[in-house]
């Protein structure tokens, strides 16, 4: 425990703490919530065809829409299925969301993992070999130009309403983005670093292993962060089109009957998952680029941003 005397909170210090980065983030959340409530209660109060408000309030979302999630629970674990005559319960809602989330996460990680690994292998192969470049480069760059979502129905036709189809679809998008990222990153390895390895006697294989691969780690990490975000988009599309389980399926049913509240709630869950997976990957892969100058800057920024918040003590 520190024995340092606690200074009284002067108006100037209070004002300073209110505009600190941490406080500003919280204030923005509160402002958004207040604006949402004002719009829901006074600006858009129309009731939709489903009997639900088309712009539900936060209270409606937290109570009614959340409870309605239990409609997607098939029963078990102490929660009845409303579809089979049971009542709506919060436990059922939680279980329905958890079950759908599990299915969505499974597809996401399988698809993104598959696409990333294949993308890295193909990207490195194309960068290393003229023959591979001439065979693969043009087709993949052409596919990169085709909007991913436009291909979703095609994958449904090819793979039917199966998990494999959704995983391959997510994997395809991840592969293409990773491939382009890796090829660009290899091309941007500073020539002087390659020349140094050559003049120190490194073989081609050693150059790839000890110079090119570590050099492109920051680009690989950035690619993972991009495809995690993209993966969620592709996951929604795949599940809305043909999957039998997952958050996208709940979204699809809710949209079909214009249950706006459920759509917003699932969207919010997607938002939380996307942000959580982004930060988790960022945190987990941070050690891989601990040598990068950006990491020192990031640490300095974190220290700087925490200090004003401590001023409240």
């Amino acid at each position, binding site marked *: 425990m520190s024995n340092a005397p606690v200074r009284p909170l002067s108006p100037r210090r209070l004002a300073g703490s209110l505009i600190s980065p941490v406080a500003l983030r919280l204030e923005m959340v509160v402002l958004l919530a207040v604006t949402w409530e004002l719009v829901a209660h006074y600006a858009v109060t129309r009731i939709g065809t489903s009997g639900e408000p088309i712009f539900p309030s936060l209270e409606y979302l937290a109570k009614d829409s959340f409870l309605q999630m239990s409609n997607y629970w098939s029963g078990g674990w102490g929660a009845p299925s409303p579809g089979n005559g049971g009542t709506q319960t919060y436990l059922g809602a939680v279980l329905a969301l958890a079950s759908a989330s599990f299915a969505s996460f499974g597809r996401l990680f399988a698809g993104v993992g598959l696409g990333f690994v294949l993308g890295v292998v193909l990207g490195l192969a194309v960068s290393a070999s003229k023959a591979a470049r001439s065979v693969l480069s043009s087709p993949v760059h052409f596919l990169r130009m085709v909007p991913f979502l436009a291909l979703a129905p095609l994958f449904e036709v090819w793979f039917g309403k199966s998990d494999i189809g959704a995983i391959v679809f997510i994997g395809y998008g991840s592969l293409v983005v990773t491939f382009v990222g890796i090829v660009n990153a290899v091309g941007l390895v*500073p020539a*002087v*670093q390659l*020349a*140094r*390895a*050559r*003049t*120190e*006697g*490194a*073989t081609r294989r*050693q150059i790839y292993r*000890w*110079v090119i691969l*570590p*050099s492109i*780690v920051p680009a690989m990490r950035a690619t993972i962060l991009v495809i995690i975000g993209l993966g969620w988009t592709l996951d929604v599309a795949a599940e809305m089109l043909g999957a039998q389980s997952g958050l996208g399926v709940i979204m699809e049913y809710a949209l079909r009957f214009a249950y706006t509240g459920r759509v917003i709630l699932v969207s919010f869950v997607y938002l939380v998952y996307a942000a959580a997976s982004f930060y988790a990957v960022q945190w987990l892969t941070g050690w891989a680029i*601990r*040598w*990068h*100058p950006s990491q*020192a800057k990031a640490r300095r920024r974190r220290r700087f941003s925490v200090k004003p918040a401590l001023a409240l003590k």
Partner: protein
Amino acid sequence: MKTARISSQKSEDSDSSQAANISAGRTTGALQSLGDRAPNADVRLDAVSVTFMRSNGDRVTAIENVDLTVKTGELLCVIGRSGEGKTTLLNVVAGLVEPSEGRVLVGEREIHGTGADRGVIFQGDAVYPWMRVADNVGFGLRVKGVRRPERERVVDEYLELVGLSHVAKSWPRELSGGMRSRVAVASVFANDPEVLLADEPFGALDYVTRRRLQGVMLDLWQRTGKTILFVTHDVEEALLLATRIIVVGGGHVLDDRPVNLARPRDEEVLASSEAVETRRRLLSYLGLEPGAGSAVGQTNE
């Protein structure tokens, strides 16, 4: 496996006292030349020309019909204005550029491509940011397959020589520009090349740091007896370091003169009449002082 060896009698002075010595052009510690110097590390260029093709189709001759021999243990400084062929000359010896005509020999061996027998200290920052300082210095040895204990011994010795033992486990991003340059110098010497090529390695550093590193370079050269080709645009640097200086201009060797100044080359030596005359001649080639000799584009008398 031939690995780098340095004098076992290490400098005991600290980094700061080393800097004081270096700033006066002196070297530190006992300057024992190595016993395992390559018997013949002469570098010979026979009628070497290098021609590049520009993107618009024009042909540019960077160096033309250059004959040059650098004797084993010489510290040859190559000076000249920007774009006159200094770096191309160095890159040809390094094997990074193939000559369009002529041949390059190290000892009796004609060289093609790069090799660990010719180490390069680059103009740009070639320190690998993802390797800690010690790993950077030991990179060449790792490439050669030198086992870790031996590698660590050599790395420790060179880090001590360049005054970086205390940052062996640091990331390059945590070092100053001067310290990174010392890492580059140590990396090349630790790899024990027969010939060392330096392409304006200290050009981007401030005056004090540059003087310190020139001292480090001299110290290592005198300890190891390497053949060194040192490209610079700084006449003072050339006078401080070289046993011989050539002036390159328009793709030709315009002047080739030994530098017989005493060492250590302190202010007094560098103010001697011989040094003044050499400086005047070199500057005139660079177009910085009117008088004897000529500007770039003419041959020496």
